[in-house]
C-alpha cells in the first residue's frame, strides 16, 4: 500500500516527522549518541515495527503458575511493558506487580547466555551431544526429571522424551504450592481445584488463604474480591474474616483478623460447627456427633480465640449464606494439615456452600496438556532416590531445589551422587552451580509455549506464549526447542519433520483445531487468530463436584510445646518473592512488602509483647535457630502476628543467581525441619520450632514506613468508616 501512493511530498513529510522525532528523543542517553548504535533508516521496515508507534502482542505471563494473559507493548522491536489481556477470564486485563516485572526477567543482565559444561562454555551441538552420549549408556530408570508444575505442549514433549528414555521418574516439584489443600479438595469434592466464587459469597472466612497476595490465582481473586466488596451488589457488601497466626495481605484487608494459635485451624472449624448446631443450623447426625466435644470453652482454650468471637463467627455464617470457607497455607502446613483442611471442607458442607460458592471446574478436553501441579512431596521422594544412589542422571527444569530444599534433607549432598546433572536455567542459580551441564533458556518473552492453568476460573483455556521480540542473546534456546532436539536424537522418524518447536507447536495446535472450536476455519486463519488472541477458549462441559467431606477420622493432636524451641516459625510467602525464583528482578526487591514496608532484605516479624519479653527492639539483628539450621536477620516488631510465633519471608537469601538477589537477606527454606503432613507426605511448612536470640548488632531497618511507624497523627489520611455508618447503595 505504501509503495502505491507514496509521492515526493509524502516522503518529505515523513522525513520531517522522523527528523522531529530524532530531535525530541535526542535529549541525552540514546545509544545513538553514545556511539553504540548507528542510525539505520527503515528502507525495509521490519513487519509491524512502525517507528514511534507501540504495537501490542498477546502472550502469557510466566512469572507464576496462575496463567494470566498479557499484552506486551512493543516499540521499534523492543518489548517495553506488559499489560493484562482483557479477553482472559483469569485476569481480565489486569496485572500484579510480579507480572509487571516480567520484562525484567527478559532484560535481566545476569541471564545465562551460553551452555556451560563443568563451568566452561560449550557449543550447543556439543552440549546436546553430551546428553545423547550419556543417556545411551543408561537404563531408563537411572534417569530422573525434576520439574516445576507444567502444562501444555512443553509438558507433552517432556513426557515424550521421558518415554523415549524409558524413564518413569518424573518429580513435579513446587516449593510453595497448596498441595495439601489440593489433596483435601480431591477427597471432599472429587476435584483438586474447584472454582471458588468469592463474588457470590456473602461472607468469606479464610483460614490463612492469602488469596489477595500469593495464593493460587491472586489477580483473579482480587477481581472477585472487588465484586464481593461492592455495596451495591444484590448480596450486599461481603464480610471477610481471616484466621491465621501471621497477618497476610488478605488478613490486612479483612473486616476481622483473628490471630489463631498456630495449627489449631481444624479445632476452630469444628468449634464453629458445634456453635452453628447450637444456634439451630441443621447438622447431619454424624457431624454433630463428631463435633460434640468441641464446645466453645474448650475450643477457645486450645485456639486462643475468645468464646465471644466464636459465637460471632457462627452467627455471621448462619445469616450470611452462601458463604465460603477457605483453607490456605497457614492451615495446611502441619503434621495434621490434611486434617485441618478436611475439617474446613466439612464446615463448607455443613453450611451448604458446595455447589453454590464452590463449583465444579471445567474439564480440560486433552489430559496430556492439562496442568500438572507441583508439590513438595516430590522433592522428598527424589531426595530419597538420590540418596540411595539410584539416580545416575538428573534433568532439572523450572525449579531451584538446592535453594528451596531444607538443609535437613541434605539435598545438595545427595544431588551430587548423580553423575550427570543437566539443569535448564535462566540464571546461574544455586542448582545450576551444582550442574554438570547448564542449558540457558530463552526468556518467557522470547519463547514459544502453551499453558493450561491449573486453576480455571471459568471454562478451560489454552494460553499461548509467543515471542514478543527477537532473542536478546544468540546463545539461549527455548525449552521446547531443546526438548525437540533431544527427541530427534531418540525418535528421528517421529520428530525429524519439525524444523523447530514453532513448527511442532503450530502443527500440534492446528491439528486439533476442530476440538479447539476452529473447525470451520482453514489452518492459517485459525493459527493467526489464535496468536492474535493469545489464547483459545476450549469448548467443553463442566466437571462434576461431589460433597463428600466427612467427619470420620478427624483427630487433632494436642499442641506439644518444646521448651528449648519455644516459638513457632511461620515462613511467609509474599507476593513479591514467593519461592524466590524472581528474586533477581529489582522492581520486586524495591517494591516494599505491603505489611512491613521493608525493602531489599529479610526480616523477622515478632509481636511487640514477645519482643519486650526478650528485650528485642526494631532493627536488632537476631538469630532465629531451629533444630535444623539458623538464620540471622533484622527484627521487625509486628502487631499482626501471634505472640507464640515469628515469621520470616521466603525467597530471600540467595547465594547465587544474580546481582539483585545474591546476598540479599537470609534463606528461610534452609532452616525448616523435615516434618511432613501425615496423610500426603508434604513437607509441613509451619512445623518448625525456633528460638530467638540477640546477636548484639543493631541496624536501622530500611523501610517505606516513616519514623512514626504507621501512625496518622490525628490527621484524616487513610480514613475508615464502620459499615453501619455508610450508605453504599447509591455509589457509582
Amino acid at each position, binding site marked *: 500500500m505504501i509503495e502505491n501512493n507514496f509521492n515526493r511530498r509524502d516522503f518529505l513529510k515523513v522525513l520531517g516527522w522522523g527528523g522531529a522525532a530524532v530531535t525530541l528523543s535526542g*535529549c541525552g*542517553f540514546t545509544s545513538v549518541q553514545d556511539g553504540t548504535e548507528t542510525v539505520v533508516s527503515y528502507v525495509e521496515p521490519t513487519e509491524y515495527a512502525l517507528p514511534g508507534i507501540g504495537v501490542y502482542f498477546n502472550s502469557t505471563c510466566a512469572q507464576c503458575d496462575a496463567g494470566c494473559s498479557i499484552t506486551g507493548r512493543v516499540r521499534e522491536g523492543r*518489548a*517495553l511493558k506488559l*499489560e*493484562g489481556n482483557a479477553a482472559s477470564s483469569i485476569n481480565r486485563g*489486569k*496485572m*500484579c*506487580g510480579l507480572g*509487571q516485572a516480567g*520484562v*525484567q526477567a527478559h*532484560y*535481566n543482565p545476569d*541471564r545465562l547466555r551460553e551452555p556451560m559444561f563443568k563451568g566452561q562454555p560449550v557449543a550447543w551441538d556439543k552440549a546436546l551431544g553430551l546428553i545423547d552420549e550419556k543417556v545411551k549408556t543408561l537404563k531408563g530408570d537411572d534417569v530422573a526429571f525434576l520439574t516445576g508444575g507444567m502444562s501444555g505442549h512443553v509438558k507433552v514433549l517432556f513426557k515424550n522424551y521421558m518415554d523415549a528414555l524409558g524413564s518413569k521418574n518424573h518429580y513435579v516439584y513446587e516449593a510453595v504450592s497448596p498441595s495439601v489443600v489440593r489433596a483435601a479438595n480431591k477427597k471432599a469434592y472429587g476435584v483438586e481445584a474447584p472454582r471458588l466464587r468469592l463474588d457470590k459469597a456473602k461472607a468469606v472466612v479464610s483460614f490463612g488463604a492469602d488469596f*489477595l497476595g500469593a495464593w493460587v490465582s491472586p489477580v483473579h481473586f*482480587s*477481581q472477585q474480591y*472487588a465484586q464481593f*466488596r461492592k455495596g451495591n451488589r444484590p448480596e450486599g*457488601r461481603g*464480610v471477610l474474616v481471616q484466621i491465621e497466626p501471621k497477618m497476610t*495481605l488478605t*488478613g*490486612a*484487608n*479483612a473486616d*476481622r*483478623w483473628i490471630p489463631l494459635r498456630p495449627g489449631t485451624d481444624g479445632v476452630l472449624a469444628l468449634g464453629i460447627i458445634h456453635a452453628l448446631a447450637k444456634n439451630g443450623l441443621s447438622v447431619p447426625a454424624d457431624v454433630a456427633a463428631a463435633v460434640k466435644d468441641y464446645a466453645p470453652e474448650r475450643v477457645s482454650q486450645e485456639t486462643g480465640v475468645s468464646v465471644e468471637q466464636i459465637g460471632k463467627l457462627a452467627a455471621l455464617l448462619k445469616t450470611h449464606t452462601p458463604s465460603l470457607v477457605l483453607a490456605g497455607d497457614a492451615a495446611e502446613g502441619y503434621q495434621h494439615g490434611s486434617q485441618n483442611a478436611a475439617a474446613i471442607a466439612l464446615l463448607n458442607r455443613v453450611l451448604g456452600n458446595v455447589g453454590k460458592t464452590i463449583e465444579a471446574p471445567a474439564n480440560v478436553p486433552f489430559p496430556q496438556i492439562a496442568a500438572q501441579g507441583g508439590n513438595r512431596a516430590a522433592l522428598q521422594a527424589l531426595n530419597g532416590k538420590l540418596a540411595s544412589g539410584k539416580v545416575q542422571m538428573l534433568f532439572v527444569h523450572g525449579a531451584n531445589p538446592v535453594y528451596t530444599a531444607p538443609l535437613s534433607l541434605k539435598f545438595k549432598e545427595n544431588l551430587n551422587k548423580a553423575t550427570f546433572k543437566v539443569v535448564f536455567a535462566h540464571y546461574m542459580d544455586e542448582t545450576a552451580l551444582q550442574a554438570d551441564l547448564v542449558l540457558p533458556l530463552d526468556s518467557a518473552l522470547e519463547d514459544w509455549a502453551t499453558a493450561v492453568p491449573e486453576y480455571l476460573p471459568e471454562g478451560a483455556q489454552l494460553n499461548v506464549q509467543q515471542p514478543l521480540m527477537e532473542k536478546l542473546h544468540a546463545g539461549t534456546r527455548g525449552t521446547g526447542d531443546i526438548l525437540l532436539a533431544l527427541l530427534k536424537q531418540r525418535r528421528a522418524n517421529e520428530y525429524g519433520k519439525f524444523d523447530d518447536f514453532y513448527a511442532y507447536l503450530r502443527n500440534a495446535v492446528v491439528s486439533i483445531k476442530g476440538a479447539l472450536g476452529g473447525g470451520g476455519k482453514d489452518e492459517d486463519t485459525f493459527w493467526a487468530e489464535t496468536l492474535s488472541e493469545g489464547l483459545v477458549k476450549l469448548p467443553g462441559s463442566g466437571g462434576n463436584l461431589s460433597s463428600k467431606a466427612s467427619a470420620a477420622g478427624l483427630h487433632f493432636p494436642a499442641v506439644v510445646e518444646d521448651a528449648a524451641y519455644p516459638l513457632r516459625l511461620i515462613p511467609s510467602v509474599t*507476593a513479591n518473592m514467593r519461592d524466590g525464583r524472581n528474586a533477581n528482578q*529489582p*522492581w520486586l526487591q*524495591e*517494591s*516494599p512488602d*505491603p*505489611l512491613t514496608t521493608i525493602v*531489599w532484605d529479610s526480616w523477622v516479624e515478632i509481636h511487640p509483647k514477645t519482643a519486650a519479653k526478650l528485650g528485642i527492639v526494631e532493627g536488632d539483628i537476631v538469630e532465629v535457630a531451629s533444630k535444623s539450621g539458623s538464620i540471622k536477620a533484622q527484627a521487625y516488631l509486628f*502487631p*499482626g502476628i501471634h505472640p507464640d510465633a515469628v515469621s520470616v519471608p521466603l525467597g530471600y537469601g540467595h547465594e547465587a543467581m544474580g546481582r539483585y538477589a545474591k546476598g*540479599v537477606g537470609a534463606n528461610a527454606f534452609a532452616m525448616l525441619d523435615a516434618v511432613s503432613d501425615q496423610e500426603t507426605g508434604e513437607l509441613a511448612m509451619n512445623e518448625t520450632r525456633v528460638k530467638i536470640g540477640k546477636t548484639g548488632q543493631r541496624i536501622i531497618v530500611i523501610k*517505606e*514506613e516513616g519514623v512514626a*511507624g*504507621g501512625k*496518622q497523627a490525628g*490527621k*484524616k489520611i*487513610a*480514613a*475508615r*468508616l*464502620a*459499615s*453501619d*455508618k*455508610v450508605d*453504599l447503595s447509591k*455509589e457509582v
Partner: protein
Amino acid sequence: MSVSNLLENWSKVRHTHPVGDVPHEEYKWAMAIDLDACTGCNACSVACYAENNIAVVGKEKYAHGQAMHWMRIERYWDEDEREFPDQGAQFLPMMCQQCEAAPCETVCPVGATNHTADGLNSQVYNRCVGSRYCSANCPFKVRYFNWWDYPDQENAWPDEMKQQLNPDVTVRTKGVMEKCTFCVQRLTAAKNMARNEGRLVKDGEVQTACQQACPTNAISFGNLVDAESRVHKQWKQQQVELAEDAQAKDEYFTDLRGYRILEDLRAYPSVMYLERVRESAI
C-alpha cells in the same frame, strides 16, 4: 509575554484552577481511589516504574530516603492500643495529588513546576535547577529528587535493561525533581488523537498505568469536566467539590465516603479517596 501584561492578567495566569469565573474548559484530569477496594498489593507502583522509567535506587540509597516511587502504598495501623490490629491495616496509594493551588508551584524559583490548562501540576525537567523548594513545600511528600545520575548507575539500568525504557518518557538526569504526571504521555497521545478526529477524549479511552494494572479497579481516572465520566459521577455522588477547602456535606452527611487528604491546607487536590469500610457486626 511582557511583564506589564503578566501583572495585569495575573489572576488569569496564576489561576488555571477554577475560581468562580474561570472554570476549567474541555479537560480537568482527576482521580478517585476506593480504599475499600484497594488491597495494598503494590501492582500500581510496579506498573508506574515500568511506564515512567523510574530508577531502582538500591538498598543504600533507599535507606537515605532517595527512593523514586512516584506511586507508593502507605500502610497505617489503628492507634487505639489494642493488642492486635484485628481490623487489618489501612492502605493508601499516594502519589502527586495534582493540586489545583499547588504549594510546590508558588515556591519554584524558575517556574519549572506549574499548572497546565487541563489541570495537571506539570514538572518541566529541563527548566528545573534542583532547588528542591517544591519538595520541601509539598504536604504529601510525593516529589522525588534525582540525587544521582541514575542512567549511569549500574544498579538502575545496566545496558540490557536500558532497552526496557519507555521512549515516550524522558529519562531524568541528576539534579532535577520528578513526580507523578498522571501519565501525561498517555494523556497527550489521547488528546491528539481525539483532536485529529475533531472530538474530545471519551471516558475510558485513556488510562493511567496504575489504573490499568489495578487488580481490583480501585482507581478511576478521567475528565472531571465530562459529566459522563465515571470520575465526575463519583465526585458528584460523594458531594466532593474541587474548589472547596471544606466540603459542605461534612457538616451534615455522615454516610458518604468521599474525602480529600489535608483539604484544609487549601491545596485543592485532584484526587478524591473513598473511605475504607469495615463491617461493624463481626
